């Protein structure tokens, strides 16, 4: 079966879809911005951006029927890259706001960054790579990425942690589990390193086709 070549960027009304689309376009890709589960289920690579707050993102996902679609594509091990709030809602639950259940795809909980340094954690910080993976090709260990968040997920299974970042505590800044990728930082705002990570992900997912 040929690999589906189209790229879906999930547009559920709570993501910085435009920035992600611009970044992919600059790499020569033509992403499909969509909230249509039928199109997402057919995509060869799926990006799931997010900004804002976990609970409101979860409400949007549940009311739009996107939750089931996301569970299905991840269960099918489709190449999937979740960003920031997109990563956080993959966990079991978040403490943000009054707290809420999330998608339950990555066992663990999203908690507020412990007091000490300035919160939100906003700016450029280093990502220590814990595994070797093609998604890191050409990106030096310890390269800086752009972060904006006050909460962070803690996976129960340490083997899924692909990257960590020091911010008073050691934060899990990147997860890789099979074809599921998740970054707490924003590759679309992380200059050359971020674009390279997108390019690596898409090459991994789609092969060398634009």
């Amino acid at each position: 079966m040929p690999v589906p070549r189209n790229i879906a960027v999930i547009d559920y009304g709570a993501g910085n879809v435009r920035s992600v689309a611009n970044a992919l376009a600059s790499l020569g890709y033509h992403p499909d911005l969509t909230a249509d589960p039928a199109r997402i289920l057919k995509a060869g690579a799926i990006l799931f951006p997010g900004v804002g707050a976990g609970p409101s993102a979860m409400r949007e996902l549940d009311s739009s029927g996107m939750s089931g679609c996301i569970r299905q594509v991840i269960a099918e091990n489709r190449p999937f890259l979740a960003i920031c709030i997109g990563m956080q809602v993959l966990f079991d639950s978040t403490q943000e706001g009054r707290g809420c259940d999330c998608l339950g795809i990555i066992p663990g909980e999203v908690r507020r960054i412990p007091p000490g340094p300035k919160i939100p954690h906003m700016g450029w910080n280093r990502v220590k790579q814990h595994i070797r993976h093609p998604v890191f090709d050409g990106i030096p260990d310890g390269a800086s990425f752009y972060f904006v968040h006050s909460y962070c997920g803690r996976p129960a299974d340490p083997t899924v942690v692909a990257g960590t970042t020091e911010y008073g505590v050691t934060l899990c800044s990147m997860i890789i589990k099979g074809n599921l990728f998740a970054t707490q930082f924003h590759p679309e705002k992380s200059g050359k390193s971020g674009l390279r990570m997108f390019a690596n992900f898409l090459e991994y997912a789609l092969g060398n086709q634009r």
Partner: protein
Amino acid sequence: MPWETNDNLGDDILLTKRIIPCLDMIRGRVVKGTSFTDLRDTGDPVEMAAFYYREGADEIVLLDIGATIEARETMVNVVERVSEQVFVPLTVGGGVRNTDDIRRMLAAGADKTSINTAAVHNPHIVAEGAERFGSQCIVLAIDAREVAGSKPRRWEVLTHGGRTPAGLDAVQWARQAVELGAGEILLTSYDADGSQKGYDLELTRAVSTAVNVPVVASGGAGHLDHVYQVLTYGKADAILAASIFHFRTYSIVQVKEYLMAKGIPVRY
């Protein structure tokens, strides 16, 4: 995952210090004099932003200093085009008067909006903006002028691009805005701006130690050491400059190399 506090890290050294070129614009054109020779159109904000992005700017600020109603559409268009070429955070300010303006700028591709005069007249816009879009999108811009003869030194807030005293103390105002939800302070010294004699270190230090959000120092950069001073003694989290970059006195890379050599963490 471990979640123990790492006591050996002071919060100063966790994030790299940001170097931010600022494009001052009127009617969609960059207006502060520039001496670019390597661009086709030195007044085009899209070309200039893309140039600074490639040079390693950590963020780009676009300020509409004309800020007329008619200029709003032009600005939205500029933001859209800049965000197609610039993949670092983009802050847009000038003429942001209500949450609808904020929403339009964010939708056009801005990551943050900077609010100045409108916040002084209606502090609620800070709270409402933070509530709707998150504190990280709301930058409070303060133009501060030293109160002549004040001891200890005090600074008053100016609005309307430095023309009108607002009757507010700059440090108090910064504190209040952060309580309302501002996620960052863009602090410009009216006295130092354009002088190239260095940032107002005392002003920056006073505001930085008064609030627990990042402070971007602006106004007065003329030499690499000014940048170093305001990031260390001034406790700023980021520096903003226009002329030294536009006139090619220093490149972004030169600033970063200088800071690195002095042990300041920068993204390189």
